[in-house]
Structures are given as C-alpha cells and as structure tokens.
C-alpha cells in the first residue's frame, strides 16, 4: 500500500549495490550498445550528415522530406505487407515443423535433422539457391506447380509475386523457432492428453484445447521476435532483387541502407530508422498488452 513501503536498511542498500555490481556488465552493455545508439540515432535523424565530417543540425527537415517522398511510403507498405504475411505464416510453419519433429517414431531423430537443416543455410546461400529454384521456366517451384496445371509464375520478376517469393524464402528459416516450439510441446504434461483420450477427445480437439493454449506463450514470443525481424527484412531483397522489380521489394531496411551507403544521406537513413523503431516498439507494446487476453501462462 502506498506510504507503507519500508525504507531500505543499511544491509539492503549494500545488497542492492552488490546486485547492481553483478549485473553491471549487462547494464553497461545495454547502455553502450543499445541506449546510446538509439538516442544517437535520433540525434542524427535531425541532421544533414554524409557519414563524414560534422553532422549539421537541420531539425525536422529530414522528416518533412521523407513524408513527401513516395518511395518512403512504398517501402513502408512493402514492409507491412511482408510482416502481415510472413509472421503468422511463420508461426503456422514452425508449429507444423515442431509437431512433425515430435512424432513418436523411432526415426524421429532423422526427421528432426532433415527438417532443421534448411535453417542452417546462411541467408546468402539460401537466397542464391532460391534464385535458381524460383526460375520462371526451369525452377523447381514452377515445376511442382505445373503438376496442378498452374501456369508458370515469374516469382522474382513480377511485382505481384516478388514479395510473396521473399515471404516463402523466409519460411526456410522456420527451423529455429520450430525447435523452440518443440521444446514447448515436450513440456506439455502427457497426462493431459491421456485424460482427454479417456474422455474420447479426437486428435483435433486435443490439439485445439490442450496443445494450442499451452503453446500460446511461445506463440507470443515468436510474434514479437518475428515482428522485429520482419520489420527489418533486408538480406533476401538485397541479394535477390535489390528492391525491384518496380520497387516492389523496396523494404524499409533496404531504403535505409541505400540512403546511408549509396546516397551518402546518413541523416535521412537515421530518421527512417527512428520511425521504424517507434513503429516496432508501439506494435510490440500493443501485442504484449493484448497477450493477457489470449496467452495462457498457467495450467488451470
């Protein structure tokens, strides 16, 4: 209750100091590598800066220019398009992988290796490989689609499909999160399933009412992490499309990169990074807030 909080006695103060001392590496790391760069970034966003020499203060000029730049809006649209598709799809694929890795068969270890293997590929190698797999005439993807008589798609060359192609590429990395889901799956007490089986519950009902609710903390984690990574999607577009065709894969992170390193506009790049940071933080807070309505932390 307010006002009744005990004052710290001397022993407590000493403990607090020791405690702070013990976590000081983290505090220092957090301040130097996170807090300072974020603040410094907001400062740079208010300057005209080529990356060399002294930044020149110009106030909100960068933001004014940005809001007038159609390419900036295109990049935000592309990024949201990607996040809205890739994050939920990532959750579904990762849960699917986890369930597949959790089957009670003797060879399950082999399945785990096979299903996890694509996630080991570095994004550069994966992207190079995808260029071949997505070839409009000779690619494996279109070959498989042709079995269903689906006409060939120019994945990376058609602005309607290019973002989707990059969403697809991202799914090859689902193994990492899949492993976390696997751990969560194995933490579910088996007696819950046994009890449900005694009551005659079907596989689907067991999944829907036992597995899924108990996976929600992991889903929350995946969405938050996926949101951060998704908003910063860069490498596949940088390697495979350079933002094209017709700027359809010009994601915000690529726009930042081009401004900073190709056009020598570090100030503008910093301003966009600041905007992206605020968007990310806001969305993360909203999702956290919403989590009390759908995440189960306890067996009840």
């Amino acid at each position: 209750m307010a006002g009744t909080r005990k004052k710290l006695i001397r022993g407590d103060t000493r403990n607090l100091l020791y405690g702070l001392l013990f976590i000081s590496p983290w505090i220092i790391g957090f301040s130097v590598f996170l807090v300072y760069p974020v603040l410094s970034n907001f400062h740079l966003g208010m300057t005209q800066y080529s990356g060399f020499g002294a930044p020149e203060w110009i106030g909100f000029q960068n933001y004014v220019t940005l809001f007038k730049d159609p390419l900036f809006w295109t990049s935000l649209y592309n990024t949201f398009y990607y996040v809205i598709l890739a994050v939920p799809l990532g959750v579904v694929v990762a849960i699917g992988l986890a369930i597949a890795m959790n089957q009670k068969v003797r060879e399950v270890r082999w399945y785990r290796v096979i299903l996890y293997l694509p996630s080991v590929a570095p994004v550069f190698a994966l992207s190079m490989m995808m260029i071949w797999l997505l070839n409009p005439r000779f690619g494996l993807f279109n070959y498989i689609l042709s079995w269903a008589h689906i006409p060939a798609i120019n994945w990376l060359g058609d602005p309607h499909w290019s973002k989707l192609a990059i969403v697809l590429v991202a799914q090859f990395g689902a193994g990492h999160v899949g492993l976390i889901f696997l751990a969560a799956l194995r933490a579910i007490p088996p007696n819950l399933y046994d009890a449900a089986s005694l009551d005659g519950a079907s596989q689907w009902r067991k999944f829907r009412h036992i597995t899924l609710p108990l996976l929600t903390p992991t889903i929350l984690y995946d969405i938050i992490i996926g949101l951060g990574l998704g908003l910063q999607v860069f490498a596949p577009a940088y390697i495979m499309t350079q933002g094209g065709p017709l700027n359809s894969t010009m994601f915000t992170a690529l726009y930042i990169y081009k401004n900073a390193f190709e056009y020598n506009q570090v100030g503008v790049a910093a301003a966009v990074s600041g905007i992206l940071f605020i968007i990310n933080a806001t969305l993360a807070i909203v999702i956290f807030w919403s989590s009390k309505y759908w995440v189960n932390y306890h067996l009840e």
Partner: protein
Amino acid sequence: MKIKSQILVAISSLSILVAAHGQTQLKFWLPSSLGAPEKAAYQAAADEFSKKNPSIKANVEPMPGSETDVAKLMTAVRSGAGPDLAVIDRFTVAQRAAAGLLTDLTPLIKKEGKDLSQEYAEQPWQEVTYQGKVYALPTETDARVLFYNKKILRDAAIDLNEFDPARGPISPDRFKEIAFKLNQTDASGAYTRIGFVPWLEQGWGYTWGYAFGGNFFDFKNCKVTADDPGVVKGYQFLYDWAKSLDPQKTRTFVDTYWQWPSNGTLPDAQMPFYTGKVAFIVDGNWLFAIMKDVAPNLEYGVTYIPAPNGLKTSWSGGWSVVIPKGSKNAEAAYQLLRYLTGEEGQTLLIKQASSLPTLKSLQERKDLFPPEYQLFLDLLPISKSRPPVPVGALYWDQLKTAEEAVISNSQTPEAALKAVVDEVQPQMDRFCK
C-alpha cells in the same frame, strides 16, 4: 599441445613482422563487381609495382559491393580500418568527394609538379575533379556499341552489310524490323530467343537517352533534365519495343536466362549473347577480353548503337583509383596510384582486360589495339558520360526505376521521367549554389 601451437603462431607472426620490417604495406581494395579480366590486370599491375619498389608492398583485397554501393568502404574508413587505395566507379567520384570520403589529391599532384590535366583525356578528367580539386585519377575508359551474332543473322538471311560501321548507325525502325525476325517461341508461346532486348546489359536509360539526342543535366542552371525531350524519346523507344514484344513474356524470358543475383555478376559463360539466346546486345569493349575466355568461337561483329538520323552516340564510364580518407601511407599510396593510372598500369589493363586508355599518349598508340578496337577509338572523342554530379548514384537508381516502369508498360515515359526529376532535383538543390 595448445601451448605449443600458440608458440608456433607467435613465432610465425613474429617472422612475418621481421620480414615486413621497413616495408610499407599498402591495402588496395578492388570492388567485387569488376570483371574477372580487370581484376587480374589490377592484380598484375600491383604485383609489378611491388617488384619495382621493394620498399612498398601492395596487397590487393576484394571489396564487396557494386558501382554505387560502397557500404564496405564507407564503414571501414569511418572506423579507421580503411584501405590505402581503392578502385571506385568514376561517375561516383564527385558524390564521394562531396561526402568527404576521399583524400584531396591536389597537393600531392602539385608536389609532383606535373600538369596531369593535360595528360588525361578531357572527359575522364572532368569526372575525377570536384569543385576544382582532384579526388581520383582515371585508369581506363570504355564505350558502348552494338554487338551482333553473325551466325544468327546469316542463318536468317540478313545482309550483314547493314551493320557495317562504315554505313553509320542503323535506324531504329529498320533495326526493329530485322531484330523481330529473329524472335523464336516454343509451343507454349514463351520466347526461346529474342533478337534484341534493348534494356539488357549496357542498354541503360543513358544509352537510349543519348541515342535519341537527349541531355541528362543542365549544368548552367543546375537542373536535372531527365524529362528532356530526347531522353523521353529514348524511353519511348524502350516502351514501344517492350509493347511489341509483350512486357510480361519478355520479362519471363529475361529472368529465365539472365539469372543473376542483382548485386553480383552472371557467370560469364552463361551470358545469353554468347549462348545465342539473343542476337544483339549493347555492351562495352571489356567483352573482347571476356569472350576470348568463355566464347572463343563466337562469330560476332560490332557497330554503332541504332539511332535516328545517323546520330553516332555512345557513352563512357570506367573506373578510377582513389585514396580514401585516413590512409596512413598517403605518399606511398600516391606512388602506386600513379603507377596504376600511368602508362604501365593502363597498358596492362588494355592487354588483359581490353580496356581503353584515358591517357592521351596511349590513345594515340595504334600498335596497342587490335583492329576490332577501331570503332571504340573512333567513338571516344564523341562519347558522352554520366553527368558527374554529387547525386549520381541516386540519379542512376531513379533512371533505372523509370526504365523498369517503362519496359513493363506500367507508366508512360513522360510520367516515369518526371518522377525521376521530382525525386532527384530536391537532393541536387543542396549542392546548387
């Protein structure tokens, strides 16, 4: 065991230090987007220099990036780990100089006491100077022409004489008539060969803008003139060509056979001109060296880029050597820079990479060039360049975006090019005085 290996490492690094004692080590960065023959030529020149100057050792290292993307260089220089020398695309020198990335070479040149502006051809010299100061020296130059596959033309009973440079550039209309005869499709209607796709390889917006008499920058008024009537005509040519071919089908064809990561280079041997997937290509003199390697039996010819009214056009780019800020051995670096951009360095580039020299003295040396270079040498005096402005990289990217909009027929040339002006001019205004 562990201690033993540590001692070994210590001894070996010590011995390296001893060996290098008294020798100046130069870090020399080559961009990864240079062609293989060019890389080899720079390497050979650096080795030759080290041999002649035992007190200096030039260490060639690759620099990931492209013509406009120098992220690696910028971050390295910023953190104090930059190279002593780097090769960068000449048309970006003004921009990198304005950004403060490059060492001003003027005092070093003055110290040498030579008037270098008289030794280099005018156009490359303009590209390496910014606001009256010299920030780079040019190595090689180039020019763009139309390459044609003689066998494909002969098989289609096309008179090769039409492409004789002595007759001047072929008109775009007549050229279209010929090129479209060479298109082939499979049963599904997909292209398996296209006579000519004007926007591939060196068929940039600059190529066609210049071919149709356009002008990209008004230096007097400091204005970006992407919407100049000539440039619009050039883009209209691309628009119409794409429309006649069908934009969607052409894009599929291109993405099938030009399968390359946008930031790297296609394996040379797969270039569709060598494999006969296209009969014509706009490209540069460096192709000579590459074809010698990967397509030695290809029968090809070169002629002017098609243009209306017999207008002979081309544009030149090329690389240059810079000393980034923060080099601790600027004096030694300058020596190597002068070697690379001097007669010896440039001769190696001519011989190994079929480059064209920027030194006037070498341009006149007829004995250096095989006969197929003649067209290029003839073009050099009239060849144009990209405007050397501090927003060169942005302008390039925007012209490319406009080109994509036009060849997919999703925007008219007027609208696409106006968007370029709207995007680039505000950035340019900062530098206009």
